[in-house]
């Protein structure tokens, strides 16, 4: 691989990563949504309430796609509602990624 190709490759990878992330202002809105509104059931500190805890250690063994689908479509038969009117699938995936690592304050 030539140096220029390598640099192009790096550039390409980084744009892909950025394309999957909401912008900074939207990230702030999503964090507020999760802490305050998801927090009604899951707790503002995400330690759980009527809904289960959303901490990295409780989510570790669950597939990320399934968690994102739960946010987006809800889970029938439980109180978990669909949030698709308020966020995109990519944003649901971003929330899951943050929940599974360290959710911003």
């Amino acid at each position, binding site marked *: 691989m030539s140096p220029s190709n390598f640099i192009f490759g790096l550039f390409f990878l980084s744009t892909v990563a950025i394309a999957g992330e909401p912008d900074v202002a939207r990230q702030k809105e999503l964090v507020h949504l999760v802490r*305050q509104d998801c927090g009604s059931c899951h*707790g*503002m*500190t995400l*330690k*759980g309430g*009527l809904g289960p805890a959303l901490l990295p250690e409780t989510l570790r063994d669950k597939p990320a796609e399934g968690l994102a689908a739960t946010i987006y479509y809800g889970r029938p038969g439980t*109180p978990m509602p*669909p949030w698709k*009117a308020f966020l995109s699938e990519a944003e649901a995936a971003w929330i899951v990624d943050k929940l599974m690592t360290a959710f911003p304050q």
Partner: protein
Amino acid sequence: MRLLLIALFALLLNACAGPQLRGTGDLGLIIERASGHITLVNTTARQPYARIGGLGDLSHASAVYSRDGRYAFIFGRDGGLTKIDLLEAKIVKRIIQSGNAIGGSISQDGRIVVAQNYTPGGIKAFDSDTLELLSEVPAEYAPGQFSKVVGLADTGGNKFAYALFDGGEIRVTDFSNPRQPTTQKFPAGSQPYDGLVTPDGRYFLAGLFGEDGVAMLDLWQPEKGAKKILENYGRGQEKLPVFKMPHLRGWSVAQGKAYLPAIGRHEVLIVDVATWQEVGRIPVRGQPVFVMARPDGRQIWVNFAFPDNAKVDVIDTLAGKVVHAFEPGKGILHMEFAPRGENVWLSARDDNKVLIYNTENFAKLGEIPAESPSGIFFTARAVRIGF
């Protein structure tokens, strides 16, 4: 001359050191959910007079009062139970009583404070003087299965009624012997989400999430068992999504009728308390969360779940419809009426303030700064059953 000066000086000192006398009847507190603080307020002056920190995770906190209104018992999400002296404006005692709590209640005689817990699921009774643990009643509904407890309410004779979210039961625990409580169990329905006792202490209602309807137990005749009211109020129609669970308390009862939030419908349901039949429903602008009667029962104030939580609708019970609809602020989480209802305090979480309105003409009277305010609790609750 010198003696006179000393005498005057002594008088002055005395005046400075003398305690400021205060009654408890017009005091209250505001929960500041994000920072573990409470702000103490005077409802006559409509001003804060102290702020106390160090109360832990208050993200779903509630408070009950001792009979004299001097002490507040605050139940935090993290299982913290904190006893506050409103006159001295300080924490008297604080314990961590469970891993994850949802609220609590105080007995008829004021001697027992009971906390309701999600983890581990059950209730615990504490001496209201010392916060010493007296007994605990696990919410075991099948071998090894413990339910989250919701809707705990004080009833006559130091009995407490509550419901099991996972277990689908109403339970009544009698703490007349607080170290050896006894519990009665009644099948109630699918996923009770909260409960209330009517202001006379006779009926316990548990709202159901898993089915259309409300479970009702006559506490004067518990042997008759829990029965279903408001059954199938959705009549098979698809439910709207519920982005926050409604709350129930005795404030729902006004003028012989109970005004209850529908689940998954943008309606307030009206039930005649004499017959327990549905007598009407009122369309509102969102999924109701709190449906609260002004103390005289003339008005019902309704706030809403996300994404309609900037709105408040006011129902006139005589007209049977919404007579005032407005958007007082961002994230209206809770409402509390002055003891006799001439004004109402609304917490606007995302505006970081509490707003005060005149309930007769809906004029704004003032506001109090508070960080992410949620629950507002006035001492008038001390003398009401089920608050």
